[in-house]
Every structure is written in C-alpha cells, then in structure tokens.
C-alpha cells in the first residue's frame, strides 16, 4: 500500500461504517437475497416490461404501449374471469378460515398431550400430490361420483346433480380442502401464544365464555387469522390446475387465461398485463381484508 496516512473515520462512506454485527447480518442474508433478486425480482421486472410491449408473431415490438392494459381491464372476458377469480379466492379463503379456526382452537385448547399427534394427522392428506387430491375430488363430485351415488342411495335426490362437478362450486370445494392446513397452522400458532391467564383475567372481570372469546381470544388470534387469510387468498387467485381439472368452462379462472396467452395464444405482452393487473388487484383485496378485520376487532372490544 503506497498510502499509509490515517483518514478520519467520519469521512468514510456510510456503507463502510457498518458495525461488525450488521456486516454479519448482511452476509447471512445475502445468499437468500441474491436468489430472490435473480429468480423473483428479475422475472417480475421482466413481466412488467413485457406488459408494455407488443408481440408480432415471434418478435416483440419494444415501443411503449398501454394497449395490453386496456384489453386486460376492459375486455368483458378478462373482466369476468378476474372477477370470478377474486370471488372464488375470497370465498375460499373466508370459508377455509372459518373451518380452520375451530380445528385450530380445539387442538390448542383441548389437544392436551395429543397436540403433536393431531397436527400430524392433519398433514396426512398432503402425503399425496396436489394433482391426486384434485383428482380425488373429481371422483367424489363426478356425475356418477361418490356424492351423487350417495345422495341417490339415501333418496335425497332422484337423479344425479349435474352442477357438482365442472363448476365454480367444485373449484371452491376442492380449494378449501387443499388449503385447510395452511390456514390451520397459523391460527394454531397464534392461539398457542395466547397467555391463558388473560382468559382467566377476562372471566374474573365478569365475562362469560362468549364475551371472553370475542374480546380476548379472537383479537389476540387475529394475526393468525390474517396470516391464514392471506396465505390462502393470494395463491388461490392464481391457481390454474384446479379450475382446469374440476372447473369446466364455468369454473375457469384468470390464471387459465394467462396460461393460454403464454402458451397457445402466444401473446406474452397481454399475458403479462393480465398478470400485473391480477397482482395489483389481489394486493388491494388482501389489504382491504386486513383493514376490515382489524377494524372489526376494534369495534368488538
């Protein structure tokens, strides 16, 4: 080193002044960070770029245009598909959380020494692949499926219900089953963290079981509920396997349209615009749900 003089430390740039603890933290994070950068942020930026271009057969016209967004937002077919996707994912996440809460509550409060066993049992359906589980629902919901045969056998209906399979309802039922565990676990964790003496305090201060649940248990398990809701809501909007297999024409969702644009239709820019639009709207819907739940809790107590 030719230069040996000492520089006052204050003049060093900020990133050189990090203390060793911070440096270690950044080093620990960097592999994940680089991975995310390369395989998540990069592709998303690429999709954003595509959405402003035009495809002419095999080449892309790189002039900036909002035409794709116009199509995505105004064409009735895409609007309907998007609305249906949002509706399905909203219903699925809501119903999943409503089903999951009592299960999580039971395991946390009454599971006793069998808690681990019960949680383990819940994961059993996940030992088979996602496709297989969807196919299993096909067998249950089909025209001559388990449900229809059973209903006829019991004399509740005299001919098979046709609306069971290949409908939005079929998609909703299948998705609720598929995502149940992902909703149970966050709620279970938030209930486990709940200090039981808080419940005794609420009782001691005069609350019966229902008021106590609404004023203490529910608000304090809200992080778990919100987590469960988002975990289910966000991926289900973009699901295309389930609608393809059990949705029929009436149960198609926006992701199926996006898949077609990137595949058969070969219109990547439109597919990208649809993707970005969906992402934005899902973000808004998720944010709105969180706000509504939060204010609900505030109002209840």
């Amino acid at each position, binding site marked *: 080193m030719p230069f040996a003089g000492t520089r006052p430390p204050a003049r060093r740039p900020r990133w050189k002044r990090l203390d060793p603890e911070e440096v270690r933290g950044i080093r620990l994070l960097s592999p994940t960070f680089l991975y995310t950068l390369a395989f998540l942020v990069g592709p998303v930026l690429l999709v954003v770029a595509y959405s402003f271009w035009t495809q002419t057969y095999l080449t892309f016209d790189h002039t900036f245009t909002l035409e794709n967004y116009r199509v995505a937002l105004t064409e009735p077919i895409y609007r309907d598909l998007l609305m249906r996707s949002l509706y399905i994912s909203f219903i699925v996440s809501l119903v999943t959380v409503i089903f999951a809460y009592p299960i999580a509550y039971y395991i946390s409060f009454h599971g006793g020494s069998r808690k681990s066993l019960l949680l383990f049992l819940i994961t059993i359906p996940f030992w088979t692949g996602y496709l297989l589980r969807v196919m299993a629902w096909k067998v249950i919901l089909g025209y001559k499926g388990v449900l229809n045969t059973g209903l006829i056998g019991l004399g509740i209906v005299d001919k098979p219900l046709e609306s069971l399979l290949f409908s939005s309802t079929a998609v909703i039922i299948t998705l609720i089953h598929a995502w149940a565990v992902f909703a149970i676990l966050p709620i279970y964790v938030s209930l486990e963290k709940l*200090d039981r*003496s*808080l419940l*005794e*305090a*609420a*009782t*001691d*201060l*005069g*609350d*019966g079981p229902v*008021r106590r649940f609404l*004023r*203490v248990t529910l*608000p*304090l398990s809200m992080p778990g509920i919100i987590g469960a809701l988002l975990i289910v809501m966000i991926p289900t909007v973009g699901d295309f396997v389930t609608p393809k297999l059990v949705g029929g024409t009436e149960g198609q969702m926006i992701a199926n349209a996006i898949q077609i644009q990137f595949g058969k239709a070969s219109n990547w820019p439109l597919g990208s615009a649809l993707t970005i639009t969906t992402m934005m709207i899902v973000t808004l819907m998720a944010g709105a749900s969180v706000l509504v739940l939060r204010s609900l*809790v505030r109002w209840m*107590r």
Partner: protein
Amino acid sequence: MLDTVSAASKPMIEISGLRKSFGNFEALKSISLNVQEGEFFSLLGPSGCGKTTLLRLLAGFGEQTAGTIAIDGQDMTGRPANRRPTNMVFQSYAIFPHMNVEENVGYGLKRLKLDRQEEQRRVREALDRVELGALGKRRANELSGGQRQRVALARALVMRPKVLLLDEPLSALDKKLREQMQVELRHLQKAVGITFILVTHDQYEALALSDRVAIMFDGQVAQVGTPKDIYQNPVSRKVADFLGGMNFVDAEIAEENGVSLTLDAAGFGRVRAPKPQGYQSMGRQITLGIRPERLRVLWDDDQAEHQIGGQVIDRHYFGEVTQLIVEIPGFKAPLAVTETNDFGADDIPVGSAIRLAYDPDALVAMND
C-alpha cells in the same frame, strides 16, 4: 382457632371443610377458615402447599371436591368466576396486550353498561389511586413491571369487589420495588377497606402486610393468627422453622397443668412455657425453641439473671446484623445468635468463649 379480630366485625369469607383433589393428589385437605370484613389476610407457605389452589377456589377457578365457601354470607358453590364478588391480581398480572392502560382498567366495567362519564370517572379514580393517572394511554408493552402491577391492581379495584385476591403479586419485582409496593399495598388496603387475601411464600411480606396470617403446609392450615402471635408462639417446629430462624432444644416435661408446662432443658434448666395450640400429650419429650435475636451476647463483666456459656464456632456477617453460631456443652445442635452490629458483634473471633443472656419468657414449647 384463635380469633384476634374483634367479635363485632362480621365474617366476609367462611370456608368450611374445603377439599380439593387433582386425580390422586390431595391439594387441599379439609380447610376451615374465617376471614373478617376489611381484613388483610395472608396465605403463607412453601410452594406446593395449596395456597394458590385455595385462592383459585375462592376466585371460582375450579370446583372444590368437598366443603363450602361462603362470601358475605352467600354460598359460592357452583358459581362461576365471572359471577363472584371477587377480583384477582394475577401473578403474571395478565394485562391485555391489545389494550392500553385505560381500556385494561375499564375492561370489567364495560359489561356493567354504565354511562360513559361514570365509566371514565371510575377508571380515572382507580388509576389515580395507584398513581398511574398520567399513563392512561400507554400500551401494555410500554409498561415496567411495577406499572403493570399497578394496572392489574387498578383493574381489579375498579370493580369494587367484596374480596380482592392477590396471587404472589410482588414476586416478580426486584427487592427495592417490592418493599415500596408492600407499603403502598398496605396503605391502599386501609384506604379502600376491601378484604384482601394475599398468597405469598415470602414470610416477611406476610408479616409486614397482614392483619392475620394462615400458614399452610401440605394442603392444611398449620396455624392462623396475627403476625406477632404466630412469630412469637409458633405451634410446631415446622411453623417456627418456616417463619424466620429458630433454635430448637430438646426438653423433658416435668409437670403439666391446664395452660402451661414445666420443662427441664439442658443448659436452660427448669423453665415454664405456655402450652402450644393443639397440644396433645405425646410422652415426656417436647421441643423448646428460642429465636436467635432473643439471645444476647454478654460483654466482659456483664451479668444477667439467666445466662448460658459456649464457644463461637462460626460467624456470618449480614451488614446490619451478625449471626454467631455458638456451641453449648450438652446441646445436640449449636445455637444461632443474631446480634446487631452496634457493639462490635462482627468482631467477635471464631473460637472465643462467650456468654449469652436470655429471657425465659422467650422460650416457646412446640408440637413436633
């Protein structure tokens, strides 16, 4: 059972034949107790003695196996915790983390459907009482341990319970703060006039705060009385040992009459001591005890009417006092002597011969 509170005051809590079992384990074995209105009553005992179980039964958490609890003349059997005239200060304070101080204190009032001004007035009054008036908007996680404790107190007091139950409320605080809170708790109780039941394993806390103390061992009440009474006249070795230090000396019963015993003890000679509560003749042997601070070191030529001599075999320095361990010829165990340090007890060398003065009235006979 000895009741030192005047007969004029009425009993607030009447417990009779109370038992509680968890499976095969008997946590409470037939407890009978009366607590007077406005009394500061402590349940003192080592961990696992059943004191917390008893407190929880009073609050309505859990059902007794047998026996009854009556509060203010009303039988509490089968009445859930949310409909009892009691409120509790939990050991962990159980402050609702999703609410601020005011909302915590006002929690129980919401159900009473008071008008808004009255509710706020009562919350403010309770907060002022525990000197938290300025912190109403603070969230639970922004409070120190002492402040959380005050919130828990205010939250219970604002309900104006007939009985306030305190489950080791000071055990989580450091020593200085604990001593300060003890004084405040005592003043608070006198100011509000509510019956307080305090569970504690800290003997000094129980002695300093209470009108009366019940000492519990193994699910049973061993002794009930004023702090002074149980400290000076413990009924058994166990009580004496749990409540401060005690020197035990074997003695032989020479004579017995209705209220007192005449005893022969090595070193102390012939002494008379009142019969302990619940005394039952169990042969001629009995234990005699004397508190370490009731033995006094005799300096140089000092003389006393009653004295014994021995040799210092160990010395412990505690700052304000020194404890000397003195071996007395003919005694099975050495005597502990606590002497304040004003006269230089901390300078007495180990190994020196020493004479100790005692007051024969300080000797107590105890059941085993």
